[in-house]
């Protein structure tokens, strides 16, 4: 019988092997490679493979990447700030929706609501970002609409080509990522706990504050991480919404690889960014560990 005759554990291991080996070759190995190349240097068209920390020294010296100066922030802190703002807005707006679907919708209608919420997420990301540009632009839908109605005399210029538009677009794009983890956490809450709380004299609002909200923290933490981490790497939205002038760290990584052709510096930037994101995420998890403990 060969492999089919082995113990169930052995067969489980055998089945896990193909996806794991694939991830090892196309994920782990590339991540090691990018760390390696970040310690090399670009020398014209060729890459000098002598070990050096020059790229990291360049990132940590000077105002561009991290430290900033009196008039503008460093790119990395600015990007972290944009991502954090997007995350905050997205999660705060998403919580009531998740709460509504979990508590306010009859069981048989829940999957319809979830389906309706997920549909926009599955439509072309590029098209969605581009649509916001059309909506918010100088000659965009909002401006031409308001002009037509006579509500404004000249187009509003604060809508596009600044960080507001980036934040609006990203909050729209990542909405679903925030709703689903919170919804799952709310669904897990034992409904009898809420009854018990009200039997013990709490009203609906204090029950929410003292029972529902603390029990849904794992979902909130999941939502925060799943929005915060990918938005840092999103370069399409800033590029389309900020025009060629404004840039975030993700644009710079992309440019080092595709236009400026300095891969080692791009790799070092990507690693520094990932480390910063990991640090912020860990700090956030630690801050909430009180509510995460004991509940997987």
């Amino acid at each position: 019988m060969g492999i089919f005759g082995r113990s169930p554990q052995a067969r489980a291991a055998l089945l896990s092997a193909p996806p794991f080996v694939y991830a090892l070759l196309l994920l782990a190995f590339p991540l090691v490679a990018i760390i390696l190349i970040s310690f090399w240097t670009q020398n014209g068209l060729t890459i000098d493979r002598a070990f050096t920390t020059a790229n990291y020294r360049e990132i940590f010296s000077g105002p561009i990447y991290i430290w900033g100066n009196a008039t503008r922030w460093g790119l990395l802190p600015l990007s972290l700030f944009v991502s954090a703002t997007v995350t905050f807005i997205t999660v705060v707006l998403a919580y009531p929706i998740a709460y509504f679907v979990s508590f306010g919708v009859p069981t048989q209608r829940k999957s319809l609501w979830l389906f309706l919420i997920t549909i926009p997420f599955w439509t072309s990301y590029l098209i969605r970002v581009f649509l916001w540009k059309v909506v918010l632009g100088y000659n965009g839908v909002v401006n031409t609409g308001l002009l037509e109605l006579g509500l404004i005399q000249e187009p509003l210029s604060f809508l596009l080509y600044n960080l507001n538009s980036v934040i609006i677009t990203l909050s729209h794009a990542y909405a679903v990522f925030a709703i689903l983890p919170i919804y799952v956490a709310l669904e897990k809450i034992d409904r009898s706990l809420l009854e018990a709380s009200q039997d013990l004299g709490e009203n609906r609002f204090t029950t929410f504050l003292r029972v529902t909200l603390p029990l849904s923290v794992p979902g909130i933490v999941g939502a925060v991480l799943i929005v915060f981490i990918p938005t840092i790497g999103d370069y399409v939205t800033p590029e389309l919404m900020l025009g060629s002038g404004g840039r975030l760290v993700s644009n710079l990584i992309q440019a080092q690889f595709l236009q400026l052709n300095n891969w080692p510096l791009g790799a070092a930037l990507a690693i520094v960014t990932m480390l910063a994101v990991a640090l912020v995420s860990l700090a956030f998890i630690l801050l909430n560990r009180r509510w995460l403990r004991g509940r997987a």
Partner: protein
Amino acid sequence: MRWSALRIYAMIYLAFLYAPIVLLPLFAFNDASIIAFPLAGFSTRWFEQLWTTQALHQALRNSLFIATLTAIFATLLGTCAARAGTMPNFPGKRGLLGFVMLPLVLPEIVIAVALLVVVRQVLDLTLSNWTVIAAHTVIAVPFSIAILNGAFQNLDPSFEEAAMDLGETRWGAFRLVTLPLVVPGIISSLLICFIISLDDFVVAQFLTGSNPTMPVYIYGLTRFVDALPLIMALGTVLVTISVSLLVIAEYFRRRGVARAGLKDTGGFL
């Protein structure tokens, strides 16, 4: 139906989610080359222009080729992982399967850049549709696993045991009993992976060869002001395809849940 404040908020939120997408067909059928209100009148000329643009057709063929193979590879790997997930634990199984899910929490640009370095610097291969397929598979596998986990975990293991007691081989039991029960999940996974690959821009921009995929082609168009209505028309077509596939995927997912004799509680993820 109760019109509580929460329900009204939910309606407004849904409107916000759908607002940009609703504009697509509005301007795609608009008889003007600028995107602005008021609308000028009905026209299908942008769709006719799509029909006659050769470069676009090439990009579409590339995208369909890449998406089809990505869907197959990702679902095959996802099936292995989801099936292993329901089997007895061996040491390190959770870590192993958790690692495969890692792309869900990695920024796409990091995956793209890392693979670009490997392909060009380490292996010294040329970029082609195959490099995009390999990368898309990495990204799509976690989604496939998430969908198929639902399908496999719903199964009662005693079905397969019964088949083997009645004389089927292990493979026969899997093929005749388990597979038909998870087919809806597999179809749903194929469709979702197909959409992920079809929509992906970031990875494709880094790893595409001389022939761009559809999103990369669209991105090139965004630089030209007079191509805006064309993008609207193209977007309308793409969104229609995605939504149709989604409705089919959801249909099969629900049928799978119903076949396993369970109550439907959730969506895809």
